[in-house]
């Protein structure tokens, strides 16, 4: 026979643990909600306190199939990958603006990430040699991109040339769309190959 005081103690402890469980659950929920809200307001652009630095944008022109260097001042993060992404998104903002010489309407913020890896597949992360930039485009950018040999080629070349101008160690560029390999950008230019930044000229070696 269990003494009466033990039964009472048992129920008091049981009630206490249930109350604690409910309180903890509520705290967790509130905390989770705060995290989600925090995620929404997480900075996707460099904070304004970062001093603006000059960056060279190799802007494409559909009318004559050329790239023209244009220096713009923008706040840049310290990490090279984030830096590359900020510069490329500034380039794509040019293309998304009305009256662009290379229109890609709705293509702003089309670069989700840029991963910088040692070129040639070496595994050393502390290397200081040539780098491969893996540019992860958003599917919205690819979906909004006009279809055509010239326009698609210019987008790829202007991204490669802009990377070369600002991150000279980047010698090779590969593209992903939403983290996956894709056959073409918008039906034409091959997105499965590795592009060499040294060859990022629209008419390199073309017959006069």
């Amino acid at each position, binding site marked *: 026979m269990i003494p009466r005081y033990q039964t009472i103690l048992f129920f008091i402890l049981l009630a206490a643990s249930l109350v604690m469980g409910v309180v903890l659950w509520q705290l967790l929920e509130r*905390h989770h909600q705060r*995290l989600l809200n*925090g*995620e929404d307001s997480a900075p996707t652009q460099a904070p304004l306190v970062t001093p603006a630095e000059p960056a060279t944008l190799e802007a494409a022109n*559909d*009318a*004559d*199939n050329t790239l023209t260097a244009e220096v713009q001042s923008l706040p840049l993060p310290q990490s090279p990958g984030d830096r590359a992404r900020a510069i490329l998104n500034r380039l794509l903002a040019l293309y998304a603006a009305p009256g662009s010489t290379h*229109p890609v309407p709705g293509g702003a913020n089309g670069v989700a*990430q840029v*991963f910088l890896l040692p070129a040639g597949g070496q595994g050393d992360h502390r290397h200081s040699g040539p780098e491969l930039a*893996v540019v*992860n485009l958003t599917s919205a950018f690819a979906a909004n991109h*006009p*279809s*055509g*040999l*010239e*326009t*698609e*080629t210019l987008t790829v070349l202007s991204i490669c040339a802009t990377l070369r101008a600002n991150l000279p160690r980047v010698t090779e560029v*590969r593209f*992903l769309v939403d*983290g*996956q*390999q894709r*056959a*073409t950008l*918008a*039906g*034409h*230019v*091959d997105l*499965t*190959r590795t*592009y060499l930044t040294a*060859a990022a000229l*629209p*008419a*390199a*070696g*073309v*017959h*006069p």
Partner: protein
Amino acid sequence: MHWSKRVLGRRPRVVALAILAAASLMVGAAAQSAPNPAPPAPAAPSARFVVIVDAAHGGDDPGGHIGNQPEKAITLALSVRLRSLLAARGIQVVTMRESDVTLAPDRRAEIANHAKAQACLSLHASTSGFGIHLFTSSLAPASSTPMPAWKTAQAAWVTRSLALSGVLNSALQQAGISVTLGRTSLLGVDSMTCPAVAVEIAPERGEGDTAATMPDDPDYQARVAQALAAALVEWRSEGARL
């Protein structure tokens, strides 16, 4: 706790993306090295002169859109015009398609390589830019090898492709059509073992950089097809002189 949760919450996505990126690159590298060698075409000149006219896209692949027409319809219309003009000039033509059928880029390259053609034109249409865009492969010119890699088989032909592009450029300019030249990486064309040029018909430039005539205009298409046919006649006579 707040800090660690925040970091942990973001990191798995970055890691997952990095793993996806690495996996995709490996798959890509494997695909690039897949052996599917094209036969090395003989460079010896002969009386035989065959032109491949490739109306790009078709079937499940509409290409871009020009007005209310899919690109595949415009390339087919241009292909039919060019085929007639070339046949009238006694040139043997192999068209990739005569109707709205799906043809993968690799299949197009197989057809072109099998025909051992003296010129391969891949026809495209776009609303971007002006005039005619002539694109040759961006592969670096390489000497012919007995077993060229499938995805880079065009490398041995790039010099001839650039020469063909030059002849097309002259003929189009003579017809008063503006031309821009470029290099690109195009699935299908990069695997062709023939002098190959991708011809993209874009709007004709009007005053003040406006599009005067769209690529779906039949008269514009007829003028372009005439100039391309004239260029191929010239290319045939150049080949005879070689």
